[in-house]
Every structure is written in C-alpha cells, then in structure tokens.
C-alpha cells in the first residue's frame, strides 16, 4: 500500500441516476487521492458499473458533480469533456477493443487522432505500452486472434498510453476464463505498485485484500459500507462486506496473485 497525498485527484459528489424508471444511483460520493486504489464491490445491479460510467459521463448523471484536480467537469462543455476523458482511463468488462484494428493500432489510434501525435511517436509509445503489459510480441494481431486476457491487456495498454490521471476499471476480469484472470490482475497489481490512481469494480477478494486502500460496498445505488480491507474483512467484523465476501469465496476458488 502506498502513501496517498492529501489532495484528492478525483472527487465524486452526490451522483444520482435514474434509468428506465429505476433509481440506479442515489447520491453517491467518494474521493480518490493520488496513488490510491479503491474497490467497488457489492451485488450485481447495485450500481457499480453505472457509477463508473457516470464518472466519465458515458452515462450522464442526473445530479451531482465531478471534479478532477479540483476542476469541476461540465458535460456540456464538449472540449473540456473530451480533454477530461483523455485523463480518465476506462477499462471495460468486455474489453471493447476496436475490432478492425490490430493491437498496435488499437493503442496508437487515440494518440494519433485525439492527441495528434505523429505516426511514429504514437507507434513508439504504443510499443512501449504493449511491452509494459507483456504482449509486445502480439502487436500485429487483431482482437479476434487474441485470448480474453490478452485483449484486456491491450485495452489496459490503450488506456495507459493516454497518460491518465485516474483509471476506472469495470470488472476487468469477470468476462475471463479462470486461467486468464491472473495475467490481467498481475498487470493491474503492477499499476497499483507504480502508483496509478484507480477505482475498480471487482470481486477478486485476494486482490482486494492485498491491494485495496479502501473498499466501497454498494447496494441499491448507495455506498452502504466503506473502510479498509482490514476493517471490513477481518473475521469477526460482522460487516455486510464480510458476509458478501465469504459468500463469494465459498462459490469460487480464485487464482493466487
């Protein structure tokens, strides 16, 4: 665990969202300090994914404010919004690699088209990021030629190439076969150790125990418990989180990381 700085990088205040007549988020607030890793857990349908997508306005929140380094983000100022999203990396459960581009171009295209880097500079950077996630040798392969774990690592490289201030990870391993989860978690663990600021929805308890600075337990659109893994997961704590996690652990043998 790392030493967080006092000033929050990301502040999420009072986010509410109604979708299809159902209140998905009810006034969710939290802060992320530099180098912090916070983890969202809780039953599915609890609003974790919606919350993450609200943070970079892929789903516009109905209410609430979001601040990056003290600057409030306004969804209607398109230019600011696009600049903000470049600084907030997003990892999706189902990868969402660009199907018509090979791994290298998947990583470099935003550098070229959004950051307006030259072709060679973008390429060089993409190679560095692919190597960082351990798939430098797969640069020429297309998404359909990669395994799930490799795809997710390409998507992490793609996000890292943008030099994000914060990363949002939406259950990055839940679409993977069990034997592929480890390689992706290893990459994320390295990021955490390098001091990347992250908020991650995940149910990988071993990972959470080892690396999370704080757990946010979400249910019915609210954070109903929060605290360090030590506070929430120690046997005998009798927390809602503890009960949920023991259930998870009963259901799955998770790979060592």
């Amino acid at each position: 665990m790392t030493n967080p700085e006092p000033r929050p990088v990301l502040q999420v205040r009072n986010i509410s969202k109604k979708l299809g007549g159902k209140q998905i988020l009810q006034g969710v607030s939290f802060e992320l300090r530099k180098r912090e890793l916070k983890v969202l857990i809780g039953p599915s349908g609890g609003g974790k994914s919606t919350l993450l997508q609200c943070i970079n306005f892929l789903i516009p929140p109905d209410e609430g404010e979001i601040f990056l380094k003290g600057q409030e983000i306004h969804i209607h100022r398109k230019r600011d919004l696009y600049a903000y999203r470049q600084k907030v990396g997003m990892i999706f459960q189902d990868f969402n690699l660009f199907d018509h581009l090979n791994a290298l171009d998947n990583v470099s295209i935003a550098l070229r088209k959004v950051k307006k880097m030259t072709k060679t500079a973008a390429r060089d950077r993409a190679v560095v990021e692919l190597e960082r996630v351990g798939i430098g040798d797969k640069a020429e392969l297309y998404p359909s030629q990669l395994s799930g774990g490799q795809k997710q690592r390409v998507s992490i490289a793609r996000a890292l190439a943008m030099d994000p201030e914060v990363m949002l990870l939406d259950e990055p391993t839940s679409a993977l076969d069990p034997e592929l989860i480890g390689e992706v978690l290893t990459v994320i663990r390295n990021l955490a150790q390098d001091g990347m600021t992250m908020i991650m929805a995940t149910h990988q308890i071993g990972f959470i125990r080892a690396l999370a600075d704080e757990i946010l337990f979400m249910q019915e659109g609210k954070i109903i418990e929060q605290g360090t893994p030590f506070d929430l997961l120690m046997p005998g704590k009798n927390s809602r989180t503890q009960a949920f996690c023991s259930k998870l652990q009963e259901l799955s043998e998770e790979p060592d990381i």
Partner: protein
Amino acid sequence: MEWDFIVKELIPALNRGVANTFLLIIPSASIGLCVGVLVGTVRTFGHPLLKRIGDGYAALFRGTPLVIQLFVLYFGLPNLGIYLEPYVAAVVGFILCTGAYQSEYVRGALLSIRRGQMLATQALGFSTFQSLVWIIVPQALRRALPGCGNEIIYLIKYSSLAYIITFIELTGEGKILATRHFRFTEVFLSIGIYYLIMVTAADFGLKKLEKKLYIPGFGRG
C-alpha cells in the same frame, strides 16, 4: 451479311454507347456511395432534425420509380427555369437514387456495430465525429460492402434509363440501331452480353476490394 452488320455497325455503335455508360456509372456510383455513407451516418447518428431530412430523402427516392425521378429532373425542372443537360440530369438522378439505397445499406451496417465500440472511443476522448470517421464508419463499411456492391451492380443496369431522357448510352445506341435495321434479336442479345461483362468485371473488382479490406475474424464475433 450478318457478320458485316455486327462488325461494321453493331460493335462500333455499342462501343460508343458503352463509353457513355461508363461516363454515367463512374461518377454516379462513386458519388452515390459517398452520399449513401453520409446520409446513412446522419440517419443513424445525426441531429434529430437532420435525421428526419435524411429519412425523408430516402423515403422519397426509394419510394418513387427512377423513371419518374429522371422525368422530373429533365422535363419538370425547366418549369422552374432550371435546365439540365441530359447527361447532367441522368447523373444527378442516379446519384440521388443510388444514394438513397446506399444509405439504407450503410445504416443497417452502422446499427450492427456493437455499442461498446462507441463507448470505448468516447472513453478515450474522441469526439462523436472523430469516432465515426476513425472507428465506426470503417467497420460499418466493411459490413455494408456486399450490399453496397449489389447496389452498384443494379446501377450499372438501370443506367440504361438515361436514354429515356435522350442521353444515348449503351441501350440507347442499340435501340436506335435495332429499330433502323429491324434486327432486335442480335442487337439486344449483344447489349445483354455487354452488361453481363460489365457486371462480371464490377463483381470481380468488388470481391477483390472485399478481400483487400478483410480483417481476420472481423464481422464474425
């Protein structure tokens, strides 16, 4: 003798005609495809007002016979003081008609692109325009290609309607000759062969293009 007619009259006339057919098809097919991509994209992702205009355009040009469209352009517009050359009227008519059909193929392909592709571009800071240009449309075009190629093949054949508004292309040249010499069978059979060759060549080119744009595993996931 038969061969004399075929070699000295029919083939030169049809060659003249086919040159004019090319003059019709090349701009109509290429500009028509661009119109289709643009209109199809606007109809799928555009501002609601633009979307309505695009839908209206497609409904109008898919809903009326091409002959009527050509008549309106060539014989109707002069009533408004707009005089188009037969060639221009034909090309404009073909572009508008084929563009409407192409937009439908493109729209279908755009709708088939998974929503996650758009989300991923947005999350990286692409503007909507950038994600359409660099990610969504290039994928959709690959999916639309068989349909768009089909429309180009149609266009090659319905370009014969230009002769109705006095632009004499392949079918027009043949019809004049057939009437003059009263040799309908030879002439129209030959015209048929000309179209068959053009369509076969176009089909070959389109297949080649499909192969060139092929991406491993794309479109089967």
